[in-house]
């Protein structure tokens, strides 16, 4: 078979991505049709910058999701096919059998794996970790930042000192110290996970309690139900194979394996925990600053006069009014988390070496960059467009939220 020309490659990639295009068209048609009823999300479709950004982000989200369902990928991202090492884009698959996709659309990497399939699978690696890490960082930052700004005093001094301490650490040094197999063996990441993942429980618990404590019947029904579910998830998250911490010298019992629906491998957990750990002090500082500003407003004074509790004021008066800057920062933070994950992959930390995530692929590809460009450039552009999309989205959201 003849190698494909550039046009044929582009055409086949576009065809391969057709589920993504269909989803994007549906999403945009629906959103633009109902944009007046969708609040801030709907207003996004008034700004061209925001629309472009949202499109880029959703493109990678859909690619990641469909890629995880094996819809877009042409080959297995880990299979090595002999004779396909470092082959240029569009090379026909050697010894292709019935049912195999006949080409390597973006060529083969230095281990003769399909670059296109690895790119698509890599999108899923980012999509599944980065937003979750940003959510957890926000939970930690909000739960600590609100009381620090609202109460001030010694609590504020101690928490701010701790936040500045973490911020003074060069991120890469912290990663090199935390994300190593030796540290995983000591169980330090598990301890950090146990501490950091408590914050969502505290956050939701206080949120519901402060809202419904005047209606004890509803609260007594709602609170145990929601908290029970979250605590169950928490225990599943932090316990692995029946242990909370399992080191050669000692171990701590956790949730029995029978109730444990999913396990997170130590390598992924340590990456997740370190990314949350690095991001939460910045969120803390933003929330604290916003709280300091908003607590001087009249509606806060009115709530205090009504006799509302401090946590009600923080979570139901201050937090909703701080949402604009926080939503914008949330988008930027997902982008920053993506960059951090790439950095980890670039230095070969944490994720397994054959992992298709973009940072590791760039790192693999850069060694042969002067001869073969095609293994390193696609993941580089992918990461660039995703982060660019998130930044543009944040910019669009900022503009639209300022128009109120």
């Amino acid at each position: 078979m003849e190698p494909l020309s550039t046009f044929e490659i582009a055409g086949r990639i576009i065809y391969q991505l057709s589920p993504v295009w269909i989803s994007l068209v549906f999403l945009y048609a629906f959103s633009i049709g109902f944009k007046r009823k969708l609040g801030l999300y709907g207003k996004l479709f008034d700004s061209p910058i925001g629309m472009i950004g949202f499109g880029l982000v959703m493109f990678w989200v859909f690619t990641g999701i469909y890629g995880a369902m094996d819809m877009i990928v042409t080959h297995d991202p880990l299979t090595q096919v002999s004779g396909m090492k470092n082959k240029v884009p569009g090379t026909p698959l050697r010894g292709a059998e019935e049912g195999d996709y006949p080409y390597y659309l973006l060529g083969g990497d230095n281990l003769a794996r399909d670059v296109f399939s690895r790119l698509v699978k890599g999108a899923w690696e980012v999509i599944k970790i980065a937003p979750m890490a940003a959510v957890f960082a926000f939970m930690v930052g909000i739960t600590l930042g609100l009381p620090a700004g609202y109460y001030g005093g010694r609590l504020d001094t101690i928490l701010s000192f701790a936040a500045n301490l973490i911020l003074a650490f060069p991120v890469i040094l912290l990663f090199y110290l935390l994300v190593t197999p030796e540290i995983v063996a000591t169980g330090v990441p598990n301890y950090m996970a146990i501490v950091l993942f408590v914050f969502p429980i505290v956050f939701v618990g206080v949120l519901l309690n402060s809202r419904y404590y005047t209606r004890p019947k509803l609260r007594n029904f709602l609170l145990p139900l929601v908290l029970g579910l979250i605590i169950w998830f928490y225990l599943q998250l932090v316990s692995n194979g029946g242990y909370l911490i399992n080191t050669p010298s000692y171990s701590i019992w956790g949730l029995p394996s029978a109730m444990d629906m999913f396990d997170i491998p130590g390598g992924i957990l340590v990456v997740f925990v370190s990314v949350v750990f690095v991001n939460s002090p910045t969120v803390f500082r933003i929330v604290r600053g916003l709280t300091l500003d908003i607590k001087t407003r009249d509606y806060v004074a009115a709530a205090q006069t009504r006799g509302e509790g401090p946590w009600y004021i923080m979570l139901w008066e201050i937090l909703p009014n701080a949402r604009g800057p926080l939503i914008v920062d949330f988008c930027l933070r997902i982008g920053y988390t993506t960059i951090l994950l790439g950095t980890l992959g670039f230095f070969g930390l944490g994720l397994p070496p054959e992992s298709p995530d973009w940072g590791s692929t760039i790192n693999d590809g850069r060694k042969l960059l002067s001869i073969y460009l095609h293994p390193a450039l696609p993941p580089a552009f992918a990461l660039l467009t995703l982060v660019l999309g998130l930044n543009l989205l944040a910019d669009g959201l900022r503009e639209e939220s300022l128009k109120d």
Partner: protein
Amino acid sequence: MGLFILRRSGVMLLTALCLTFIVFFLTNLYPNLEKLAKTQGNFRMSDEAVASWLDSNGYAEPMVVKYGQWLGVLPGWTRETEDGFTGRCITGTATAEEFAEASTFCGILQGDWGYSTRFKDEVSTIVSERLGNTGFLMLCVLLIMVPSALIIGVLAGMREGSATDRSLSTASILTTATPEYVSGVIFIAVFTSSTVGLKWFKGTATSAMDNPTFENFFLPVLTIALYGMGYIARMTRASMTEVMTAQYIRTARLKGVSFHNIVLKHALRNALIAPFTVIMLQFPWLLNGVVIVETLFNYKGFGWVLVEAAGNNDIELLLAVSVVSVVVVLVTQLISDIGYVYLNPRIRIS
């Protein structure tokens, strides 16, 4: 003002102590020490051999004691062997007379930064030499980054919403969205590889350590500068647009002052206060970029030392690296606070 600086210095010292203790704690966890023993001795050591190696090299003592020794507030460890004496303050093995003369305390308070197990050299010489390389890189980065970022920001913020503003703002978003390892890879691919065929620059900066030229040094500098540039430019733009809507600018325009003069004489000075803080706070991020770029371009500076020390669990070198980076971060914060007050007389520190 004096009291403010004094208090900040106290906090700085406390932060540095806490941070070095965290680094100390993490590097002295047993699996890390075991790895160190096996790389220094041999990889097939039994558990007993590892334990005895750690004991005879002073690693087996309690964590706090070892930290005290590193600081120089507790006497260094000593061991008596058949060949003579060994100890923290002695290089190699010493006789009884030399041992009697050797100092008891040798930590950073005495100016002794320790010995690198990776490079087999004094930590202070390694760090100072590599810092020189990185310092030159940083200087070049700042010389490119700061003026161009300020010019872009001022040009964009001068007329909000104009075509110049739109295109420059999009360009600065693009650079902030491109981490160093992406832009570096793209630059190497486009400008140095034989496939594209431009070959304008060199893909490695190894020769730039002795003889920096435009050809081998421009790409690493540009890679770091671009990532930081977008952020500073956006901050400058924001501050410039704010100043341009101020009352005194409107007054000047109504008086009939030319636009050129308004920008240069009335707006610029006030618009540059906020970016100054941002530039100072960019230093910690530059440090990150330096590590990535030095790895990518194989330039042996401070970032390269960090990677080598961390990869080999070189405890004392890592501690020195973290002390240096913490001091850089905290000093730039202090300068930005003081400079902010100095530039903007409306703010006084109470």
